[in-house]
């Protein structure tokens, strides 16, 4: 896969295929992931090639999917579960919180439940209710889980494989509105993943303000940094990639360099990822901050009807407004 144009969706599809080829214990589970290839076509072609026993169209019951995935994992399989949309993960919440996250510690390490829970998340696609949620903070607050999010095709390809290889359960957040965005990708399978699953990446270096984002907002922040550069402002952009654990070294190094940080995400700000990041930075970088850590996020309301979503979601203007505010200190 050298130097080709790939969408994020195809990156995931290729990553899943690679993982299934490498390890016969990898099974995919979810609603409509078989013949249909999933409502976003992420699993397209996989049932045809790997059979119905490895690409399982499950009954329509998310607790059932997660609960049977736990059982399969206990039997030695590595389930990769697709949750059809972010808003439909809640019926499985109990299994994830009470079982998936705690099985390894409960068993003092005798039992592992390596599994990946794929969640297409976030808004911006004009969908009806329950189809645009950003619920990553619930899981990031839950010890025993790992939570990551990819923002581009290359990461999609590698991170999904790293998540599957991980012996811990991983919540894998996919920015659904970026599924069909294409990027030139240079994939060298022999060389392996360019960085660890839990490393943040400085996507653009800058000196005035640090923008921290993940998933769908990474692109928005890169655009904001581009626009700011035109006005002579130098923004650093960090793609967190991992929400739990956080790569605090990368984050604090940048905060200490710029002294000003704006965290951007779609989720409501109240107890969103920005809260944790702000709390950590203000503590670790107390003497370096020129301004408080600011948060630009979704409002603290349920995800609104789609006619409102452009205003609900942080966009270039709101990110730059946050930057202005940080610089005003």
């Amino acid at each position: 896969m050298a130097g080709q144009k790939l969408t994020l969706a195809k990156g995931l599809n290729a990553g899943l295929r690679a993982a299934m080829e490498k390890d016969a214990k990898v099974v995919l589970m979810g609603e409509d992931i078989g013949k249909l290839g999933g409502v976003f076509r992420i699993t397209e072609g996989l049932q045809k090639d790997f059979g119905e026993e490895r690409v399982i169209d499950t009954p329509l019951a998310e607790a059932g999917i997660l609960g049977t995935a736990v059982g399969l994992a206990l039997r030695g399989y590595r389930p990769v579960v697709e949750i059809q949309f972010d808003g439909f993960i809640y019926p499985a919440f109990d299994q994830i919180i009470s079982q998936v996250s705690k099985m390894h510690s409960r068993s003092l390490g005798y039992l592992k439940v390596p599994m990946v829970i794929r969640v297409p998340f976030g808004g911006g696609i004009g969908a009806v209710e329950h189809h645009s949620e950003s619920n990553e903070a619930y899981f990031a607050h839950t010890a025993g889980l790992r939570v990551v999010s990819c923002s581009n095709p290359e990461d999609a390809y590698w991170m999904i494989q790293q998540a599957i290889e991980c012996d811990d359960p991983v919540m894998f957040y996919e920015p659904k509105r970026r599924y069909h965005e294409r990027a030139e990708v240079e994939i060298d399978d022999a060389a392996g993943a360019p960085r660890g699953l839990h490393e943040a990446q400085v996507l653009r270096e800058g000196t005035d303000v640090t923008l921290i984002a993940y998933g769908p907002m990474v692109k928005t922040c890169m655009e904001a940094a581009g626009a700011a550069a035109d006005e002579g402002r130098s923004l650093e952009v960090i793609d967190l990639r991992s929400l739990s654990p956080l790569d605090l070294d990368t984050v604090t190094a940048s905060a200490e360099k710029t002294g000003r940080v704006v965290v951007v995400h779609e989720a409501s700000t109240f107890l969103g990822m920005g809260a944790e990041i702000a709390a950590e930075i203000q503590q670790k970088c107390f003497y370096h901050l020129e301004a408080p850590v600011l948060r630009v996020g979704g409002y603290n309301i349920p995800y609104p009807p789609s006619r409102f979503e452009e205003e609900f979601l942080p966009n270039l203007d709101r990110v730059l407004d946050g930057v202005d505010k940080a610089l005003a200190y």
Partner: protein
Amino acid sequence: MSDQDVAPVPERDLGEISSPHHHETVAPGVPVRDVTDGGPEMVQFLDADGKRVSRGNCEPYEPILEGLDPETMRSLYRDLVLVRRVDAEGHALQRQGELGLWPSLLGQEAAQVGAGRAMSTQDYAFPGYREHGVAWCKGVPPLNLLGMFRGVNHGGWDSNANNFHLYTIVIGNQMLHATGYAMGVQRDGAVGTGDPSRDTAVMAFTGDGGTAQGDYNEALVFASVAHAPVVFFVQNNQWAISEPNERQFRVPPYQRAKGFGFPGVRVDGNDVLAVYAVTKHALDEARSGQGPTLIEAFTYRMGAHTTSDDPTKYRVSAEVDLWREKDPIKRMRSHLEREGIADPAFFDGIDAEADALAAEIRTGCQNMPDPELPTMFDKVYAEQHPVIDRERAELIAYHAGFEEGN
């Protein structure tokens, strides 16, 4: 691992349970589906040609059928046609970019009109997201339904105006709401009084896929334990998006009710008379304090799951063709003609009415205003909330800033 490693699935004697689906196997790669036959227990009063028959366990429902006068028969037909037209218009509006999504009820008109028309005014309906026909029968203005698909609201109508709850998207949730509402009806003393304007039943709608959800099954538990006046109405349209019945159950949904302690009935969902009679019977029982019933309306989703779906990926058109033969409207029309209940002028009149209705919906939709931005904060809480107040104010200030050319 190859397919051969998977053990075969021999049939086992399940006692008196009949399996109209002939699930000869669910082994991988060998789906054998025979969904065109509802089995010997399915209640049917009109066959595919519109001939009056008495099939399945139909005795309890015959008296209800016999009580139907020609006027009612015609109005049932009228509803079938108008509901299909409402649906077609929704579909068209989506195609023209006026709506973001539309879930079509094509093929399920009889199931919905039969159920909706069997309800009394005070009966309360808890729909999923495809119950445009039930909404119609409950008197909900079709435009109400469009808002959420246009993205201007999440429903936003007054459910109590027509005793038709908001659409529920998360599969299964509403089954419990209906059950709890029915428990409230019990506490209000609105069951078994014998007063037909007081006694109240509740209906909960879901699909074949919905029967797999925990919430659905818990609703059967709670309803049965409380002996609540609720009727569970499962439209088995054979598909849950791309998944056929075989992925959700091995025996038909109506058979599940007995194991929870109340009756389950399978009815031909493309036969409006049978659906009407079976539902009316169940609602009467619920209202008089006889507890819940589960109705499975055996029907077919003729269209895509929604306008976002592409069914060619997972089902063959021959199946759709078979079901087209069972069309609920054609069947009712034949019946009315055969029995001399309606003449060509009547049918022409309905068609004209449908055209007018469609035009009205189209205009109404196109003229539906976008809501004012700050209103997105307005009804998050019923009582005052400081975070909401602050964010609303910030948003207003932010936009005012732009207008000042900031």
